[in-house]
């Protein structure tokens, strides 16, 4: 694999030295392009008090193309499917090299606070959300309670998911 560009090193250093509140991103020991990420659910959202695990991978073309990000913790969200994939414009067409890991993670955190069922990825969730937002929020809370409360649970959920 190609050597690590200076930008990635710089970004990583900054993520450690000047972390974004409610977000952690730690590179994997054996692959510095692979990050373990946790995002705290935003306070005013059904995901508050939940800690969500994500994985983030920087492709070789980074920063020309966007990082690949995926939820590992099960989450009930119209823009996140059950595989954890995220529907977010800056991760797709609206990516710009001027964006960084931290800005992307902030965007994801913001997405938790503002679900957009009009541009869904998980169609069934989006459907629920549109029909009965209260109930959907309730489910989201339950899921958060169930899967995103602690590391142990989160890990179990991942295992469950993969089963």
């Amino acid at each position, binding site marked *: 694999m190609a*050597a*690590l*560009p*200076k*930008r990635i090193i*710089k*970004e990583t250093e900054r993520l450690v030295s000047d972390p974004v509140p409610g977000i952690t991103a730690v590179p994997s020991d054996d692959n510095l392009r692979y990050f373990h990420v946790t995002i705290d659910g935003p306070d005013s959202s059904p995901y508050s008090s939940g800690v969500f695990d994500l994985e983030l991978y920087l492709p070789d*073309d980074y*920063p*020309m*193309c966007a990082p690949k990000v995926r939820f590992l913790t099960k989450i009930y969200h119209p823009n996140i499917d059950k595989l954890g994939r995220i529907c977010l414009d800056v991760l797709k*067409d*609206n990516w*710009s*090299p*001027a*964006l*960084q890991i931290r800005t992307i993670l902030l965007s994801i955190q913001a997405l938790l606070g503002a679900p957009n069922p009009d541009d869904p990825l998980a169609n069934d969730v989006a459907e629920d959300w549109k029909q009965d937002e209260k109930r959907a929020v309730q489910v989201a809370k339950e899921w958060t309670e169930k899967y995103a409360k602690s590391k142990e649970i989160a890990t179990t959920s991942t295992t469950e998911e993969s089963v």
Partner: protein
Amino acid sequence: MRRTILLAMVARKRFFTPIDQALAKSQDASSLFVKDEDFQAQVAVSGGDDFVMSEKEFGEYLESELGHINSRDTKLLYDEYVLGKLTLKQVLTEYLKGELSSSLPSAENGSSIETEGSVDDLNQKILDESKRQIQLELDSRWSQFIGTFNVEAYATRPMLRPLVFEQKLELRRLQSKKQAESSIARIFTTGTDSREIGRVPEEFNKFFSPLLDLEMCVFDMTVLMTTKGRLSIGDSFYVQVDCFLTNMAFASKKTLYSLSQTNGFISKGSKRQKSTSTSFDYMKESEGEWLLKLRQYSLSELFGKLEIKPLKMHNDKEEVNNDDNSSSNDVIDCDDEQYDLEAQDIKPVDQLNVNQLTKFYQNNNQSELFTTLPETTTPPTENFKVTLRPYQKHGLSWLLTREKEISVLEELANQNGSNNLSTQSRTLIKSREEGVFNPLWRKYKWPKDISYDNLKAKTIGARRGSGSNYFYANMYNGELSIEVPILKTALKGGIIADEMGLGKTISTYALISSVPFDTNISTQEDQNSGSRYASKTTLIVLPMSLLQQWKNEFDKINANTKFKCQIYYGDLTTMDLRHSLCKDDDCSEQIPVVLLTTYGTIVNEYIRYNKLRDKDGNLPNFGIYSVKFFRIVLDEAHNIRNRSTKTAKSVNGLKASRRWALTGTPIINRLDDLYSLIKFLQVEPWSNFSYWKTFITLPFEQKKADQTLEVIQAILEPILLRRTKNMKQKNGKLLVELPEKEVIVENLTLSEKEQKVYDWFKVRASNTFQEGLRSGELLKKYSQILTQILRLRQICCHINLVGSTSELELDVDTNGKESDEILKEIRQLILSRDENDEFKTQLDFKQCMYSLYNLIDLENSECSICTESPISIGEHCITHCGHQYCLSCILDHIEFQQKSHTQPLCPNCRQPLSKYKIFRILNRETRRKEVNFYSQAVDDDDDDTNDYKFKLYLYDPRTTSTKIQALIRHLKIIRQQKPGEKVVVFSQFSSYLDIIESELKIQGSDDYQVYKFDGRMKMNERQLVLDKFNSPIDSDKVSVLLLSLKAGGVGLNLTTASTAFMMDIWWAPSIEDQAIDRIHRIGQDKNVKVIRFIVENSIEQKMLKIQARKKQLGEAVSMEEEEVKRQRRIEDIKTLFEEEVN
């Protein structure tokens, strides 16, 4: 029976007196021995006997003639007989006359001796002793056939009878009173009526006489043809002369000398010889030396006449080993009547003519001693913490043997348990300690005895020979020896001439760590020399540039905290080395084990102290000269190759008990280069310049190169260690495995513009080719096609290369074939624009540009793509929307977007981007010319932007090239990831190198240090560039060496770099491989990465295929005729185009 009797009758009486006296008068021992010397001398001069009965045979003979005989009498008679004083007949007469019995104590007298008791016992002992000595002398007497030739002799006296076929003649010298005649050998008839009959021609005479006088040779003469009637004076007759070397020829120099004096041989008349002999003026001649020269002259004349040639030196090594086995086969077979004379010609073995310099280093490494040395020797771990490679351990064994530290060697070789010092190497070391084969000597094989008598089997039994199959001769001074001549040497040290990169430094430190101190100091020596002995210090003399490297290396290997490495600058005039290096034991820890200094320092001191030499010419005991070091090591010892330079003189003035010279090139251009090393090492006797000159320089100049080189090889063999990287270890692996080499082909796509131009040329070239193919005149169009192919290759590099008429680097006729019209057309092509993306009017452009000026903050700029901050000046650019990036970043971004068929947007504001609307921010100092490579020229020097430190230029993508962009992209990554890295960029077009140079300079002098090396540079400039490139730099700039494939493809050492870029492709893969080997070679310790830029779907890719095919064919291509080559090339071109057309 034939016998040569010389002086016998004269000597007989006198000869026996001492023994008589000893027996009869019981004189004291001392007087006996005085006489005895005389006696032995007589024995010695009476040489020339060739057939002697054994004592037993003699006894039997006497008994058969006389019946029972007293055994004591037999013995005495035998002694006389053996000495050649008496013929058998004479012996009998003698006995019968009773002379013997009267002079000898009879059996009856024996009882009276007994009564005298102890005195007689003593006498008996003395007698026995003297007899034993006679016997010893006798045992060593012999003569051996050396050769034969025919001579036309002439009569000096009228003869009564004709000479008869097979008649024996004798060659004699008269001890004439008349000095004028003393150098003439005369031919005598044999028998009782022996009289002089003639002489040999002067050409033979002049070496016959001395050989006869010195008793070195016996000549048997046989008349070959019965003369017609009796001879008159001046008539000629033919004789065969069989030559035999006697033991006298092999007598030691000392004996010889004393002999010549006692004999009173040297007569003034003989000096006639001197004028004809080779004269040596380098020494004042004493009579004895003159004698030796005469001897040398005579011997070499004799050998020349006999066509005796030495065995080749290096063959004989094996022969020596096989001696025991082979000798039985070589036994002379006297009975062979059908002996073929032709076959007996001693063929010169030494006919090989090998490249002299390479020959030099051969054999050294295969030396028997070296191969038997253990490969497990490791320096003590408490001193040395680096692991040596196997061949380095092997080398250390050798170094230790050279220093005669055998016990240390045994101990260190044993550390690992197994692989003890083999007995074989033990014996070899021991024999080596005793001395080495003297290279001035040559080994000869005794020829088969084809003397007349021998062939006719006329003699009873064989002659007594030397008992050896070989003999040795020093043709420089005429010495002969049966024993192997040994040159003793007390030298401790030698030359380490390992090729660069094999670790001479580490070997040296390994040696120092193994034997850091002199353990047996003889205090006496110190006092004598007047200077103190720094028995704990090794002085290493280096060129200044290597000082730090050695220091660092020491820190790396040294494990003993007590060992210190100091640098001696010599600037401390007060610093007395005697105090700092020769302290008493209590503070010996302060003494540095290694003292590093430079040649310059020593020369300075030398100059300073040279004026202060004392009356004996000794340097004063100051500074570095004030002590005698334990060991001196000269690194890059070829620095002293000129013995008359101050450097050489100053180094030779240093005192040390062990001396080492390290150099990868012991000889740079002259043999005398080596002398200086020999002198420094004090290799006796070669360090004497007159000696060296006589035996090396002069013979070499006299075109005796092979012989001289053999001598040098023999001198060097024991003291020189040379390994090359091509040598294999015992396990078959190379001594040094190079680090990995990775060649990456990076495929690039031409930009639109480039592609347009490329296509235009491709069509043209393809047309020419098709036309040629149709008309069958492909060969005629060969150069034209080649030119067009060249154009295509150039476009792949950079459009500007096309039309640059200075491009003469290829074997192609380019003389103005491209008409101006075509060039115009190309320009047109290049200049046509994508209207949409560009500024529509000059006004738009200027408005935009000026509005950007105040947005720019050089110090606080940050590229949001690569996060570089501030953006380096060469890269700094700004989009028309006012956002700053690195140029390569934003271009990458645009390219990436275009590839994925999306409209490129500014990463920051998402406005549409165009590479035609980017402005470069450059220093005002940047040369206008360089700017032009990149950007549209703007004639606006009079604008109001002068307040700014920088200036904006519109970026013009048309003038750059895909490859250069790719290169810069790579360099940028290297700059980021490996600051201080060195990179080599190869191209076959030197004008391309110029373009790259300009571009890199614009990229910023902060990031890249650009060097260029091409065929247009002078030799000294080239060296300067390389030195600069190879020397370490402090900054983290990336050093880029732009290297012309042709000028820099061979020989250079660029191992400081580990990355290479091949900008373009060359027909022959071997040329490219060679270029890559500049960095991937011995000394390279990093993995090597080679990036080859190849434009996709272009001629380059096809060339790559041809290369691959060529590699498969191997180098057979180069063996072919020029015409065949050409044909093959056309085939290549065909494939190029066929694929191209498809």
